């Protein structure tokens, strides 16, 4: 019996050995195709994972160049990138979210100046510069604001024209809250502060006071934020949490899915989110969806547009082999010029050859078609009407630590809305900014 067991175990070990070597052999065979470089893309956007996988396959079929796409789980990009970059087969194409993200990865960014893809950009504003070096290229511009269910808004007796600034938004929201029992819905979806949803407020909503302060001062980054517009931040946050589907004390456990469900099921009129969310809320019906600017009661906000920008910059790993860098540059160029690829990236329903929906992105490249994403087109309408888009200044927020500090202070304040608790938000915002900027210098 023992002998048989011994034999079995040895066979098992041998099999394992053979298994290892044969899979190595398989890789070698794969590499002997005509193409020399390979592409490894570490994708930031979980909602576009399936589409990237398909585009990668199409590209490999067309050119023979192997493309591997790995998507980091939501909120896990830095973690995944750090561990992947330490491997011998590191990503050749990765993303940073802007100047702050660039600070930790600039040694890994290949200079894209003069590359073919850089020539396709519609404006150099979308290039992320590190001194004279073009470290990254924004490949998608996105827009966020307050998404509105116009059908419900109509049932409450209002139209979009009624909302032109913070005061009118507040009046509408509070009227809906007062009549929510009879109407059967609330003004806002739950402002969930769970990790899946808190970025909407600690990052995206916090962008507005930062934007107005930067505009006043004429700067685009600072080591010490003053918090001039934090009272406005409080006003809009109060409006969100006290006119929503959820009791403010329960926000800490509400998720992004909860908020999306509130909106899709018609339980709320307003939902702060962005163009990327369209596929999740399309069930409401295209004709019922619109988007308005996030008014916070700042001077001149009648002219304020939606918040448009990018936090998705493509960077090429400068430590990859030369063949891989070339292959990656070719792949990027293909993505923004090839008809199928552009259709897959920008298109909506059925835009991919497999019949799957495209990514619905608006890309800052010459090939950008008219979008199939209604929310993107709403932004175009705002810009055409001469409204001034709010830039994405949250890319200058000092660190994740800072965002988390603001986020937890907001959560505590929501549950118990005292001045003392708001002071903690202000402190996390202003003092936290200074100390985090100093710490990450």
């Amino acid at each position: 019996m023992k002998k048989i067991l011994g034999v079995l175990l040895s066979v098992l070990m041998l099999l394992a050995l053979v298994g290892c070597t044969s899979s190595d052999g398989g890789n070698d065979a794969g590499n002997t195709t005509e193409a020399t470089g390979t592409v490894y893309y570490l994708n930031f956007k979980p909602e576009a994972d399936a589409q990237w996988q398909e585009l990668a396959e199409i590209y490999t079929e067309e050119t023979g160049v192997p493309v591997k796409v790995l998507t980091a789980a939501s909120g896990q990009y830095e973690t995944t990138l750090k561990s992947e970059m330490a491997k011998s087969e590191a990503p050749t194409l990765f993303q940073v979210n802007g100047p702050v993200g660039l600070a930790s990865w600039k040694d890994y960014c290949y200079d894209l100046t003069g590359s073919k893809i850089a020539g396709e950009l519609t404006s150099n504003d979308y290039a992320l510069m590190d001194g004279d070096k073009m470290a990254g290229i924004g490949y998608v511009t996105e827009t966020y604001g307050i998404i509105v269910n116009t059908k419900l808004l109509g049932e409450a007796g209002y139209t979009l024209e009624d909302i032109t600034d913070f005061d009118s938004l507040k009046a509408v929201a509070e009227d809906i809250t007062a009549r929510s029992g009879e109407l059967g819905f609330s003004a806002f979806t739950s402002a969930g502060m769970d990790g899946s949803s808190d970025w909407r407020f600690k990052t995206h909503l916090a962008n507005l006071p930062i934007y107005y302060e930067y505009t006043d001062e004429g700067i685009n980054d600072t080591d010490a934020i003053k918090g001039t517009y934090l009272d406005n931040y409080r006003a809009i946050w109060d409006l969100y949490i006290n006119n929503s589907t959820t009791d403010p004390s329960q926000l800490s456990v509400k998720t992004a899915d909860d908020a999306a469900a509130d909106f899709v099921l018609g339980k709320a009129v307003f939902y702060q989110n962005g163009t990327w969310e369209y596929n999740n809320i399309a069930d409401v019906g295209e004709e019922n969806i619109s988007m308005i600017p996030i008014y916070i009661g700042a001077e001149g906000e009648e002219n304020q547009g939606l918040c448009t920008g990018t936090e998705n910059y493509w960077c090429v790993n400068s430590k990859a082999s030369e063949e891989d860098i070339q292959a990656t540059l070719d792949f990027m160029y293909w993505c923004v010029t090839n008809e199928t690829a552009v259709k897959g990236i920008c298109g909506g329903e059925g835009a991919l050859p497999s019949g799957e929906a495209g990514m619905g992105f608006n890309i800052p490249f010459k090939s950008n078609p008219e979008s199939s994403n209604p929310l993107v087109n709403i932004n175009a309408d705002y810009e055409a009407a001469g409204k001034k888009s709010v830039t994405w200044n949250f890319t200058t927020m000092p660190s994740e630590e800072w965002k988390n500090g603001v986020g937890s202070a907001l959560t505590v304040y929501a549950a118990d809305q005292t001045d003392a608790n708001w002071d903690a938000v202000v402190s996390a915002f202003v003092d936290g900014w200074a100390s985090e900027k100093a710490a990450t210098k």
Partner: protein
Amino acid sequence: MSKNIKKYWPLFVLPTFLAFIIGFILPFLIGIYLSFCEFTTVTDATFVGLTNYVKAFQDTIFQHSFWYTAAFALVSLIIINVVAFLFALALTQKLKGTNIFRTIFFMPNLIGGIVLGYIWQLIFSGILSQYSMAINLDSRLGFIGLVILVCWQQIGYMMIIYIAGLQSIPEDMMEAADIDGASSLQKLFKITIPMMMPSITICTFLSITNGFKLFDQNLALTAGEPGKMSEMMALNIFNTFYGRAGYEGVGQAKAVIFFVIVVGIGLIQLYFTNRKEVEQ
């Protein structure tokens, strides 16, 4: 046979030894080296000396997390071991269905920490929402929640170890005690507990180190909210590592400090409980 073992033992030890080096010794040494470095990826580091340790010791949140963790480890140590011991005593009596009860009590241990954390978060939310509270809003609630969760998870496991210990106590000692007229309390304190010291050593060691190393349950249940006040050491290290650009080394330095603390406490605890063990 034994001659062969003497001759060939290096051959048999080699695979495990290699695995031990690759999976434990090397990462450990690299980790210690990295704690003196500034780095973005672990393969590309520059030596900076002790600055990481200075920053780690200056971090007041890290100090808070130490005391919070220590309090948690102590409370969970006592509750887990006392309750597990009582369950073990109860389930070694001649009762019907003891095996079923043992299985049921052991089962929570088979569920992963993250899943448990989210499940208990739902349960606590359901209760606390009645009082307009939530577990993430008060670090004391977070503490109680974590203790409940970890006790629920680990009592069954420790109970199994105690049951094994109880069953190994020779029947004749108990009989002799009965004949000498010992009361059941005397039997418990003079025979059972001294004879159980090896199990107690293991269980207290496991529960105190588990308490210090707790990560998934902490992450899933409270994620350190509110404002890092319920953040335990392991989670604090993780957040330091990923929270800011350029703080990877500080996180690593904290991890080394953490290692020294856990090993120190583990050894002290072993020293004290080992002294009480008796020869059977």
